């Protein structure tokens, strides 16, 4: 059954060295606070899964926590490259990192298959694409009715998934709304799921019946962390801090500057700092 926990306990109780972990969020609702907590706790040898790695994986890779990354778009969305991830792949700094690369369609279908309890996903993909030649986890199956050859990828099944969401009710049901991305699938595909939320409300009785609600029994732990997705955003609460994404490009370009920034902004901080970071980005009620 779901537990409401401080973020430090939720992370310590659900993430382990060597785990396969997904911190998911498709531009929206990126679980930055949970990722920063994982960085502070210093986990090692992680396999990081995410469609759009972005800043938090750049940070975890730069801190040497990852042995492998599984992704489909390794960029700073709308800005450019991820410079810490580049340094690891191109130069093995601070350590070499294994790469498993897919397309968005491949990753989305693989999460879907994981949520659906299937061993693999089948779709029309990777035709003529170079990835099929360099990723041994891209295979084919043949439609037994038409003979069409389709792509197959293994289902994604993280040990633990972290997501950020708008709110939980007191029973521990969780609402995700706006650009919902791959969050539901990432939670349902995982053995354990930890959710940070902006707030807890008494009940969801007044919600529209067709919204994306994750029932409490699909979640391991919930932590209340207002602002927890900054510099990403939370639909209905605060807007995206585009300036921070632009700044990251400079911070991550230099190994020492990166370390200094991490020390000052992650290592020496706590989850409680996130509320202040979104104060000027909040949407007027």
């Amino acid at each position, binding site marked *: 059954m779901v537990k409401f926990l401080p973020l430090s306990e939720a992370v310590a109780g659900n993430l382990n060295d060597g785990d396969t972990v997904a911190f998911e969020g498709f531009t929206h609702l990126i679980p930055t606070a949970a990722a920063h907590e994982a960085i502070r706790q210093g986990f090692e040898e992680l396999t990081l899964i995410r469609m759009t790695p972005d800043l938090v994986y750049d940070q975890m890779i730069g801190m040497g926590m990852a042995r492998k990354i599984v992704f489909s778009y390794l960029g700073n969305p709308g800005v450019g490259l991820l410079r810490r991830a580049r340094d690891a792949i191109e130069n093995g700094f601070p350590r070499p990192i294994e790469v498993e690369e897919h397309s968005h369609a491949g990753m989305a*279908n693989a*999460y879907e298959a994981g949520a659906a309890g299937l061993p693999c996903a089948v*779709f029309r993909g990777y035709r003529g694409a170079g*990835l099929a030649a360099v990723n041994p986890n891209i295979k084919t199956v043949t439609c037994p009715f038409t003979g069409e050859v389709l792509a197959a990828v293994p289902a994604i099944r993280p040990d633990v998934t972290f997501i950020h969401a708008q709110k939980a009710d007191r029973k521990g049901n969780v609402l995700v709304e706006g650009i919902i991305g791959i969050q539901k699938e990432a939670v349902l595909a995982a053995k354990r799921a930890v959710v940070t939320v902006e707030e807890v409300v008494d009940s969801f009785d007044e919600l529209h019946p067709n919204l994306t609600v994750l029932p409490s029994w699909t979640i391991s732990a919930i932590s209340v962390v207002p602002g927890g997705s900054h510099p990403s955003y939370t639909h209905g609460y605060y807007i995206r801090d585009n*300036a921070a994404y632009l700044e990251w490009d400079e911070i991550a370009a230099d190994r020492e500057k990166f370390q200094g920034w991490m020390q000052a902004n992650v290592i020496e901080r706590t989850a409680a700092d996130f509320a202040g*970071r979104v104060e000027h980005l909040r949407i007027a009620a």
Partner: protein
Amino acid sequence: MSDSESGFTPNEMMTIAASRALKNDDVCFVGIGAPSAACNVARLTHAPDITLIYESGTIGTAPQVLPLSIGDGELCDTAVTTVSVPEMFRYWLQGGRISIGFLGAAQLDKFGNINTTVIGGYPHPKTRLPGGGGAPEIATSSKEIYITMAQSKRGMVETIDFFTSFGHGEGGDHRKRLGIETAGPTLLITDLAIWKPDPVTKEFTVVSLHPGVSRAEVQATCGWTVKFTDALEETPAPTALELKTLRDLQARTKAAHAGTGKGKAA
């Protein structure tokens, strides 16, 4: 054509030429790195009912400012509906509902094959680029592909380092031979010219030069030997309305993005 009053930059010409290629009933998939400026200029001028789809799940979106990322809140706020990412790739892209997939490129070859993955070899790249995102399947599931990029010898190359997304392969009927039934790249719009594939060889051929651009300039910024069509045209210069629409959009965008955050912590 480009007198001082109606002056415009090559990039503005590129965006506006691309916007003109879009029709009112198009369903356009705007992938990572794609010129959403062109799509939104089309929507704000001659194609008010065009359907713009971003891979973040937003369908029929009509942003007032250009998004920095493909998942900005503005896209959701103005969309007809916002669906999950698996649904986006299964029902909407793979389902064959996209008329135009709009792609950018880090490297492009003459057959419309695109690389946004690596410079150098894949296992030990010289430069690790972001990768394909949605592009591999946008390139094969959209009915047609439009490509837009600024010309450079580094970008328009004889041989790309990695096939992120498949265009016409080695040309001719290569798509068909791989079982790909969609048309592939049918239009390339650069800052200097408009290109279309040869009906048989599928090699991109210049069909229209932007105002004031010479054949020599096109060749000087392209890594392969450029073919020009016999009936070469000149791209009509941007109209005052087109320019104003684009510039207003960019000004609104700049103001909106500058307003967010001090970036104290990422």
